[in-house]
């Protein structure tokens, strides 16, 4: 087999794996959008906040240490203990539920009935707020996230492909774990929304707010629930991203790429988020591989957005979205 083709295959595989990570972030968007019609721009920041909280709890950092030191002139930074990973994940999950509750009570409650675009801009405000709040709470250095996931090159794939083609593919173990976790997560979400009472209520709300209200479903509870689930998905995405590249605030900008993923897949479709993520992941890797060197490289910065933009011109609702019907 020609070498270029082998490289392209490897790039495609790695693109698929990167796509899984985008899809994980996009999943959180879809959940919230379906249940409340809110386009949550801040999802990427939730990912960062979740990951930071996890690392902070795990390593026993004192929240707001920097601020406390500045005000009171103390020199505290750590509690001096480390928390087991499982416990830290549970605490971080609880923190995300708390965030969901705060968002519902202090922001969404007051914006019911406003135009969608106002809600959208409110989530941009939330993005900004957390952009300052997260580093204030946990410090602004790059944090190392380690929850004991497998990392490094996968030897099995390397040797197997070497046996087949005479060229070993480089696939990171972490990416494989991420793909498995994503699959599990989606399965769990589907089971939850199909077979539990809360899940059915959630689907009812997604279908029609007023009808759901009239059969006695509490909208407030459902919204807190759905933002908590989105926070939990953000935590999972944060663990994956964070293990891969460390936790820092600029991760949120990478997570913005989940937006074109959504536009491609459709805002209301969970399979759309996954497939959109894979298309974007593969597309940008292949584009960078094939065209990137000709135009100066680093095309990943914009390829996803331009692809989504061009795609939208032909199909405004995305691949799997519901048809947009407008009435006067």
């Amino acid at each position, binding site marked *: 087999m020609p070498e270029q083709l082998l490289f392209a295959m490897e790039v495609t595989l790695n693109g698929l794996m990167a796509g899984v990570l985008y899809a994980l972030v996009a999943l959180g968007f879809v959940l919230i959008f379906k249940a409340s019609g809110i386009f949550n721009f801040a999802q990427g920041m939730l990912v960062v906040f979740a990951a930071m909280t996890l690392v902070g709890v795990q390593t026993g950092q004192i929240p707001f240490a920097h601020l406390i030191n500045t005000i009171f002139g103390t020199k505290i930074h750590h509690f001096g203990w480390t928390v087991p990973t499982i416990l830290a994940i549970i605490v971080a999950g609880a923190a995300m539920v708390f965030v969901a509750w705060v968002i519902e009570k202090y922001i969404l409650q007051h914006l019911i009935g406003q135009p969608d675009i106002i809600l959208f801009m409110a989530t941009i405000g939330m993005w900004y707020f957390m952009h*300052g709040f997260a580093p204030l709470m946990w410090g602004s250095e790059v944090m190392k996230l380690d929850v004991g996931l497998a990392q490094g090159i996968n030897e099995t794939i390397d040797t197997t492909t070497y046996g087949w083609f005479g060229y070993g593919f480089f696939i990171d173990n972490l990416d494989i774990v991420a793909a498995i976790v994503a699959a599990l997560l989606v399965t769990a979400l589907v089971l939850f929304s199909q077979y539990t009472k809360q899940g059915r209520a959630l689907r009812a709300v997604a279908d029609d707010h007023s009808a759901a209200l009239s059969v006695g479903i509490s909208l407030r509870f459902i919204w807190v629930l759905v933002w908590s689930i989105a926070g939990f998905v953000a935590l999972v995405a944060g663990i994956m991203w964070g293990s891969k590249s460390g936790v820092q605030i600029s991760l949120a900008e990478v997570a913005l790429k989940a937006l074109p993923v959504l536009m491609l897949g459709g805002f209301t479709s969970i399979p759309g988020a996954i497939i959109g993520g894979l298309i974007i992941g593969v597309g940008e890797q292949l584009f960078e591989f094939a065209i990137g060197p000709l135009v100066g490289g680093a095309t990943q910065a*914009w390829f996803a957005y331009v692809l989504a933009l061009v795609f939208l*011109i032909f199909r405004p609702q995305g691949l799997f979205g519901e048809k947009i019907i407008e009435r*006067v």
Partner: protein
Amino acid sequence: MFYREAGDFKTSYRDDNQTFPIRLDRAGYWIALFVAFCVIPFFVNDYWVNSIFAPFFIYAIAALGLNILTGYAGQVSLGTGGFMAVGAYACYKLMVAFPEINIVFHVLIAGGITAAVGVAFGLPSLRIKGFYLAVATLAAQFFLVWLFNKVAWFYNYSASGQINAPERTVFGVIVTGPNTEAWAKYMICLVFLVGVAWVARNLTRGMTGRKWMGIRDMDIAAEIIGVNPLMAKMSAFAVSSFFVGIAGALFFAVYLGAAEAGESFGITKSFLVLFMVIIGGLGSIFGSFAGAAFMVLMPVVLKNLLVGTMGWPTEIAAELEFIIVGGLIVIFLILEPHGLAQLWRLTKEKLRLWPFPH
């Protein structure tokens, strides 16, 4: 007591439709212009111009531009930073290529080029709406910044990848480059701002502006009563990008003097201008000024207070700034979606009745 329509007789249609129907407002407007043009330039120093006046004027131009697109025509854009970069780089290329032409024309032509780019990226707005469009404009933001970073022609193959404004004069006064005097910087920004604001005000209260507002309030309904959505949306994108391009050109040439696309025109700039528009007031000329003033002054005040007076590290001040701005956005959207401009309007209503509110 003095703020009344009473006794101010309007005898023509023209009088009836003027921008400031109340005499005190008109007087205030002329006094503000007089102070801005004839008093302040004699007193400003470098610190005031560089940290307050120049950024305020330039951001006000950008906010006016975005307000036309978002506030009047209802098309949310997150690509303002990218369009400012187009204005800056177009201005740079023109300044270097045609040194004998006055810089004022360069800035205007840079605005024109930005308008063309804006229309190109605005075309999808015919098919996609709302936050779909907002995300699509992110494509403009990331693509344009990447373009100016990677294609060496745009920065004339300079080793640092930066663009530096050469020295240019207007009527013999240096306005760009490191030797610019504070008052010259101040004046050129002010002249552009007043011009842009005048055009914006007159566009938005005429036929064009009414079409934009029709599209904003409900585009299908507007189309049915005879507004051409293509023309309305494209003209909104063109005018908006023209202003934003001017702002970008001034930001680079007069204010910064040297710029690098990713750093000076990144996505934070897009957010910043959008926040000015939201806090100031969507669909209001005054709001653009108020929002720009607020967003320029707030960090300066915060920095002086926390870092200067209390000796806190700048890092915490920067983080608090994010928190305050984000919080304010949410609070404004909840309590007063029409922003500072609406608060100003309410104050004026109260003032008209004062001191006998019954």
